[in-house]
């Protein structure tokens, strides 16, 4: 196991100082040109060397006719070439001394027939020169902490803590915008494609040692080095959480996966067991994979499965309690001392039980400080789930009724919401118990954004929030079993 990330064989690929780019031109509709442009727009601070047989300048940067003409040996070469040129270009890179390559080009094992032979040649050439390569049939790597993005999609949002290794490129590119909505982002994301050389196990090892990565997410269609995967994941999952989505366990998923990356899949129940054995929390869908990742990457670990639910409306409280029961979480009775503390804040119309349904707040501040504080102090509760219904307009109205103009009132209202979010985040830190929120309103409203940017994940609806809390509990359970 690597403890220093710089010792990882993938380090130069993910943190290059210089990149040779093969397949970019001034024809902007070409795939290679799009990727090169997105690499530049990400603000990559290192040296870029486009290689092109005819163009002297590519997108304003001096180009080189052949790999051998490059003025230095770059840390990384990116190929977006026609399939037939890939093997000979890899050979030229070997001669030049390049040892890390990303092969975006497709048309290898995944198409069968001659593609199989071509991929074998690729592996042999790489072995001969000691080259480590990602792909083929992938979209490469993104490392927002180093402003590196070899995908065609422009990176959005900020660098984050989710490390991804994916057998699909879309779950890298499509997630830039998706994750930004939840105020999280990638630490590093790999698209492994056909995994002819670098595979999910290599990426897992890298992400395990990566200091920016707090949680590792895996999208799996089929694992090849299965036994090594389990051993590697076991070592890493006792240090940081790993979540995985496996789609090869159904007949339909298995067939689609095979034509996608040419990977053999195994039975669903086998992967259930393997993940559990390796300390990996299994997600059921793509969105759940990232729900789990943001919860496990930002929340403290759950000591048990008991949830306190706080709401100001009966229906969402009951739905949340039902979701807990169905997910294997408990909704325990509150301790007498908690009920006593809460009686000061809950009006006579409310219900002081679990879920706590306050109906309306005597003092709106109580909802974000006194009440959650009392629930987190309760030794019967391991986690807190809160239903939020705080649109900005609702806060704005009473402030404006005091005679302030809209702009001043909005400034007051957002500041107030920020303070409440900070108060909850502070409570979570002090009690070291996970808090999750749920809403049916837009996740991009001010308050959920304020909470999420402070590490309290908010979900659309109680079911997703409850599953994410379950993941916190499940991870803690798997980890303690591995350490036993």
């Amino acid at each position, binding site marked *: 196991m690597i403890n220093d990330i710089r010792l990882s064989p993938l380090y130069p690929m993910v943190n290059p100082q210089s990149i040779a780019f093969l397949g970019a031109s001034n024809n902007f509709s070409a795939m290679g040109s799009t990727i090169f442009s997105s690499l530049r727009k990400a603000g990559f601070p290192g040296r870029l060397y486009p290689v092109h047989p005819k163009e002297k300048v590519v997108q304003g940067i001096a180009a080189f006719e052949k790999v051998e003409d490059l003025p230095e040996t770059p840390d990384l070469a990116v190929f977006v070439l026609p399939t037939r040129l890939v093997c000979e270009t890899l050979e030229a890179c070997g001669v030049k001394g390049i040892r890390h390559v990303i092969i975006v080009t497709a048309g290898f094992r995944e198409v069968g027939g001659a593609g199989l032979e071509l991929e074998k040649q690729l592996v042999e050439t790489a072995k001969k020169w000691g080259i480590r390569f990602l792909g083929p049939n992938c979209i490469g790597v993104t490392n927002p902490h180093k402003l590196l993005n070899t995908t065609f999609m422009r990176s959005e949002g900020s660098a984050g803590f989710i490390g991804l290794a994916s057998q699909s490129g879309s779950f890298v590119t499509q997630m830039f915008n998706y994750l930004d909505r939840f105020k999280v982002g990638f630490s590093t994301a790999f698209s492994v494609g056909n995994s002819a050389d670098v595979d999910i196990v290599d990426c897992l090892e890298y992400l395990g040692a990566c200091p920016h990565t707090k949680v590792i997410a895996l999208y799996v269609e*089929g*694992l*090849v*080095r*299965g*036994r090594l995967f*389990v051993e590697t994941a076991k070592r890493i999952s006792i240090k940081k959480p790993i979540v995985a989505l496996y789609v090869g366990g159904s007949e339909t998923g298995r067939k689609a996966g095979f034509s996608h990356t040419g990977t*053999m899949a*195994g*039975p669903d*129940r*086998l992967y*259930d*067991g*393997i993940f*559990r*054995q390796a300390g990996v929390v299994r997600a059921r869908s793509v969105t759940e994979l990232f729900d789990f990742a943001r919860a496990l990457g930002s929340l403290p670990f759950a000591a048990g499965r008991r949830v306190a639910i706080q709401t100001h409306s009966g229906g969402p409280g009951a739905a949340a309690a039902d979701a807990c029961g169905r997910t294997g979480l408990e909704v325990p009775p509150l301790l007498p001392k908690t009920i006593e503390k809460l009686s000061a804040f809950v009006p006579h119309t409310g219900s002081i039980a679990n879920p706590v349904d306050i109906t309306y707040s005597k003092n709106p501040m109580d909802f974000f400080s006194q009440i959650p504080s009392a629930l987190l102090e309760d030794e019967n509760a391991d986690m807190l789930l809160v239903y939020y219904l705080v649109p900005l307009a609702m806060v704005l109205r009473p402030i404006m009724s005091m005679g302030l103009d809209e702009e001043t009132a909005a400034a007051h209202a957002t500041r107030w919401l920020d303070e409440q979010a900070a108060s909850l985040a502070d409570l979570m830190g002090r009690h070291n118990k996970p808090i999750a929120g749920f809403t049916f309103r837009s996740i991009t409203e001010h308050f959920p954004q304020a909470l999420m940017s402070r590490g309290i994940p908010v979900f659309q609806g109680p079911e997703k929030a409850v599953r994410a809390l379950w993941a916190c509990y499940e991870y803690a359970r798997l980890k303690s*079993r591995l350490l*036993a």
Partner: protein
Amino acid sequence: MEPEKILEKALLEGRKNLTEHESKQLLAAYGLPVAREVLTQSLEQALSAAALLGYPLAAKACGSKIAHKSEKSLVRLHLQDDAALEKAFQELANSPDAEGVLISPMIAGNRELVLGLVRDSQFGPCVMAGLGGVLTEVINDTAFRMAPVNEGEALDMLDELNGKAILGPFRGQAGADKSALAACLVALGRIGMEQEAVKEIDVNPVILGPEGSITAVDALVVLQARKVKP
């Protein structure tokens, strides 16, 4: 008999699996609790086995080409006396591919489990536990782990079953001896790691007695001739 000798003999004969009797001998050598049984070749042997084991008894046709015994009516259960045994013995001994008749006591218990070993192309030997009996495929409630497994992992497999309640106290019957079940799974994992010639093992059913005891009453060990990559 030593496991290696049982396997070597079958491989030399070019067989694809062990007989039920050999399968149980192999499992017993690894500490699995298998039902007591006697392989008999004649009615005299069968009757003396009955005197040793006591009624009620089960009789089964045994042979290296025999699988799916219950589908082919090669099993006679709840035999109460010598006359019933004699009739069963004659029928079974004359059935195609029978190389002998296995006589064993009826094991009490109506809760049935399945334990096993499979070799996966990516994960190598993997142990399996599930709810067993004739409805195994229909119920499809199984848990897998990559071998080798330790006791904690084996216990977690049992906990993973949807129907795990059947392992607890159930309708006046005691809960299963889970540590004994876990020990079986650990042992199956060891076989997977140590015996390259074993391709698959299916122990079905494992009967859970009213006092929580576990007994393997049927088993099939499938062989593979050459070494395969784990």
